[in-house]
C-alpha cells in the first residue's frame, strides 16, 4: 500500500514521453524528475532560464549561479542552455513546452485551476504559474483528491481566485485521472485502492465516465 504522494507521482511520471520538453512546478512536481527513466531523453525547463535541468550537484560543485525556479542548486545536462527570463517565457507562452506538471489547490469541472492564493492569507505571488498554464501544450495538475478536512478539491467551480480559466488538460489525484474535453470533465482512470463510488463521493464536480475507463490492479 503506497502513500497518496507515491500514487500520484507513480501515475504522473507516465505523462512524460521520450523527446519531450517538460516544465515541472515547485514541490511534488519537481520530484517527478527522479522517476523519469534514464533511457528517455527529456529536457526539463526551468522558468528562471535553464533548459536541461540535471540532478542536484555534488557538494563540491554547488554553484550559486546555477539554480532552478525553486531556487534550489542544480546542474545542467548535456545539450542544455541558459537564457534570460523573456526568452524563457517566450518558450512557455509560445507553445514550445510540451508538458507542464503543476500542483493545485482547486480544479473545477471546466478545467479552471486555482493554485496561487487564499483570500485573507498573505499572498506570496503567482510566480510563473499563470504564464505556464496558458502556454504549455499540455497542462497536467497533480494534487490530492480531497483536502485535510476530507472536502473535495475538485469543484463545480473554483472558490479560490483562478490561476487560469479552462487551462487544465488532465488532473491526476491519488485515486483518479480526469481529462477536460469539449464534453466536460471525463473520468479516465481509477487508481489503485479506489473505485467509482469512492470517486463519486469525493468529487463535488460533475463528470462523465469514459467508456474505455481503465482500472489499476488492486482497485477495490
Amino acid at each position, binding site marked *: 500500500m503506497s502513500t497518496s504522494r507515491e500514487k500520484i507521482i507513480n501515475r504522473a511520471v507516465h505523462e512524460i514521453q521520450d523527446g519531450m520538453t517538460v516544465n515541472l512546478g515547485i514541490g511534488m512536481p519537481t520530484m517527478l524528475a527522479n522517476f523519469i527513466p534514464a533511457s528517455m531523453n527529456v529536457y526539463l525547463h526551468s522558468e528562471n532560464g535553464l533548459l536541461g535541468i540535471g540532478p542536484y*550537484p555534488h557538494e563540491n560543485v554547488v554553484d550559486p549561479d546555477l539554480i532552478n525556479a525553486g531556487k534550489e542548486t542544480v546542474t545542467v545536462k548535456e545539450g542544455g542552455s541558459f537564457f534570460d527570463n523573456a526568452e*524563457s517565457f517566450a518558450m512557455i*507562452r509560445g507553445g514550445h513546452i510540451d508538458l507542464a506538471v503543476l500542483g493545485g489547490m482547486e480544479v473545477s469541472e471546466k478545467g479552471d485551476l486555482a493554485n496561487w492564493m487564499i483570500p485573507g492569507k498573505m499572498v506570496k505571488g503567482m510566480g*510563473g504559474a499563470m504564464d505556464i498554464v496558458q502556454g504549455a501544450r499540455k497542462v497536467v495538475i497533480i494534487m490530492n483528491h480531497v483536502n485535510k478536512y476530507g472536502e473535495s478539491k475538485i469543484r463545480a467551480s473554483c472558490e479560490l481566485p483562478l490561476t487560469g480559466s479552462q487551462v487544465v488538460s488532465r488532473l491526476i489525484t491519488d485515486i483518479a485521472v480526469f481529462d477536460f474535453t469539449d464534453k466536460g470533465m471525463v473520468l479516465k482512470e481509477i487508481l489503485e485502492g479506489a473505485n467509482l463510488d469512492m470517486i463519486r463521493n469525493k468529487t463535488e464536480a460533475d463528470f462523465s465516465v469514459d467508456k474505455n475507463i481503465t482500472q489499476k490492479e488492486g482497485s477495490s
Partner: protein
Amino acid sequence: MTKISTSFNDIVRIIQDGDTVIVGGFGLSGIPEKAIMALAEQGTKDLTIVSNNCGVDDWGLGLLLQNKQIKKILASYVGENKVFEEQYLNGELDVELVPQGTLAERIRAGGAGISGFYTPTGVGTPIAEGKEHKKFNGRTCILETGIVGDIALVKAWKGDSYGNLLYRKTSRNFNPLAAAAGNKTIAEVEELVEIGDLDPNFIHTPGLYVQHILKGENYEKRIEKRTVRA
C-alpha cells in the same frame, strides 16, 4: 569615453528619491549586491522597485525594505521575506503582483520601445481586472504595458569599458532585460576585461545599453536552497 566607475557610493548618487529602479536577479541569484548595499547606505527613499523577487530579510532588496526605502514593488513572488509581510500588512508598502512571464515581457518591451502587448497570461484571473481585453484568432488576451526604469541595476559576470556584458549560467535571468530598460543602467561585474577580449558573436548585453560599469569585490552570492546529491 570609458564608462568605468570605481565607487559604488559615488555612482548610486544618480538614484533619486521617488525613482523607479529595475533590479536584476532571481531570488538571490544574480542580484546586483554591491549596488543594493550602496543604495541602502545612501538611504534614497520612496523608490518603486521592479524585480522578480524582493530578497530575504537581511540580504538583497530586503536591505532596502528594512530601511523603509521602498514605496512600491512590482514582483511575481515575494514569499521569502517577513519584513515585506509586515510592511505590506501595515499598508506601508504598495505591491503589484505581476505574473513572471508578463513581468519579463513588460521589462523587455520597455527596453525595446514597445508600449504595450497582448498576452493570454492572466485572462480570467484577478490580474486581468480593469485591463483591456481583445480576441486574436478566437483567443482572449489582455493588454499589458512596457516598463521603463529611471535606473536599472544589473549584475554580470564579465564586462568591458564600453559596457558589453556576459552573464554566467542562470544568474542571467532578468539582468539583460533590466539593462535595456533603464534610462541609466549601472552594471556591476565580477571581472572587467579589456575592450576586444569578448567575442562579438557571444555578447549577452551589447554595450550601448549600459551607462556605468563597476567591478565588485568579493561577491557573497548567497544560496537560498542548497540542495546536493546524496
